[in-house]
């Protein structure tokens, strides 16, 4: 079990956008079924990590492995075809296309019948079901974010990359999006997420990485990082956390950490354990 291969591995990756290097020897592992969150101050290189995976960052060193295969420097359209879906922070929907058309474009690389998947998306994102024919640009920020995530899920990706999915959203929508992220993950999709709302993000994450100045600063389980006084003081706005149960940084990363949380999550991995219309239901 411990030998289970991680879905995504960044092995001491260095890179930038032609010239200046932005990330230095970053190592990150995303295991099967995990939510992994990247936190850190602005300019820490969090989004650049995503771009490195997508092939839009110029890689100066290190390797990126997807299912153990080297995908370092593969251009984005090919990375997408290999099962990595990405939701950018901004401009992540086609505003003049309807919600339905956005989902169709999400399924562009699919050659089979994707309509069942589309129905599934309208169940998962119930508020969108009534807006199928509306141009995505006319939706509210929260709903647009749902379209963006649903669009990315149309290919039934092996990995979902989310760049600050709750940026600029009101607290209510933020809750909703985090709930959706957990839901999607509970259905089996590993998620690598960059988030400014670090506390909430770590709350739903199996593990987290703290990046500073383009380098790994520390990592641990979501609960462990939340309890870490130093992390709390630096990034979570106040170090009021109680002394942590040792975050065990050396634990075999790549397997969901054996925290109580991890077990609780594992318990509801069965899709039937949760009704599919959760986000919609939560709104009412």
């Amino acid at each position, binding site marked *: 079990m411990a030998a289970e291969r991680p879905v995504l591995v960044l092995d001491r990756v260095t890179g930038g956008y032609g010239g200046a290097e932005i990330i230095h020897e970053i190592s990150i592992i995303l295991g099967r079924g995990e939510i992994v969150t990247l936190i850190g101050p602005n300019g820490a290189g969090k989004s650049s990590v995503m771009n490195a995976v*997508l092939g839009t960052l110029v890689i100066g060193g290190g390797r990126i492995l997807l299912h153990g295969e080297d995908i370092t420097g593969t251009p*984005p*359209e090919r990375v*997408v*075809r290999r099962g990595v879906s*990405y939701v*950018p922070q901004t*401009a*992540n*929907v*086609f*505003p*003049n*296309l309807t919600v339905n*058309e956005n989902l*169709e*474009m*999400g399924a*562009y*690389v699919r050659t089979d019948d994707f309509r069942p998947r589309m129905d599934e998306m309208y169940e998962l994102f119930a508020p969108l079901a009534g807006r199928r024919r509306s141009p995505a640009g006319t939706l509210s920020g929260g709903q647009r974010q749902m379209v963006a995530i649903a*669009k990315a899920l149309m*290919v039934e990706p092996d990995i979902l990359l989310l760049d600050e999915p709750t940026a600029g959203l009101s607290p209510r929508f933020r809750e909703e999006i985090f709930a959706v992220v957990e839901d999607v993950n509970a259905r089996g999709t590993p998620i690598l997420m960059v988030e400014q709302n670090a506390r909430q993000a770590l709350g739903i994450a199996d593990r987290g990485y703290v990046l500073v100045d383009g380098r790994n600063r520390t990592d641990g389980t979501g609960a462990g990082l939340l309890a870490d006084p130093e992390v709390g003081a630096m990034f979570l706005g106040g170090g009021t956390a109680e002394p942590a149960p040792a975050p065990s940084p050396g634990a075999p990363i790549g397997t969901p950490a054996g925290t109580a949380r991890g077990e609780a999550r594992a318990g509801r991995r069965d899709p039937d354990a949760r009704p599919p219309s959760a986000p919609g239901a939560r709104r009412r």
Partner: protein
Amino acid sequence: MMDFVNFHLIPGVVLGSIYALGAIGVTLTFGILRFANFAHGETMTLGAYLTLTLVLLTGWHALLFLPVALALTALLVLAMDRMFFRPLRHAPSIILVIASFGLMLMVRSLVQVIWGTELQGFSKGITLPWVLFDSLRVFPKHVVILTAAIALMVAVHVLLRHTRTGKAMRAMSDSPELARLTGIDTERVVRATWIVGAGLAAAAGIFLAYDSHVETLMGFKMLLPVFASALLGGLGRPYGAMAGGLVIGVVEELSTYAWIGSEPLLPPGYKAGVAFAIMVAILIWRPSGLFRGRVF
């Protein structure tokens, strides 16, 4: 009154439908490839001359060659994209604009070398109009042009709204970067854009030649009203281009009607200035055009 309909309104609508066909290509290229293609006028010229050659070789009616001429023009334009625009795909758009300007001069010179500079026509002699209700005079060629133009525009609508490639074209017009990150085959979309734009431009050139004559400067003369139509409709907005073309065509023709007294409001020689005036006015007061297009 019937003079107004016969000599201004009907020709205006026909001319407008021709402008509309040309403007769709300009607006699609602008939306998807992000540059104003100055060689678009020459595409129209090419369509007309290819048809002329086929007519001279066979003696058949020009419009029988419409599908062949459209396909040939599209192939030539795809070749031009491969040679001149593809190497510059990620260059700043001003570079592409200048490249298209150079291509325009090259194509026009080639056309002049191959076909000569004198006026030519698809057919000799004149056709008489049908006379309806004793006073309404309609030329058969105008009915044919208008019908074919409408059919082509409906085809564009179906393509953009109901096909995977058409939706991908709209998606890429919205955001090329997101299209790429979504896994859309952007080169395929670019090829589709050239094919549609070139096909419609060739049709516009052929219809214009069918209505009057073939000459090497016809495409260049179309460039201004066609750009004005695309701008009026809003850049990147195909439906705007259709509306813009119709408006410019009709306004150009109506500007020469004797609105006051018995003299034309505007001497016919100044007709081309109308499109220019409209274009300047849009750029000053409503650069996004009627359909909220892109502003640069």
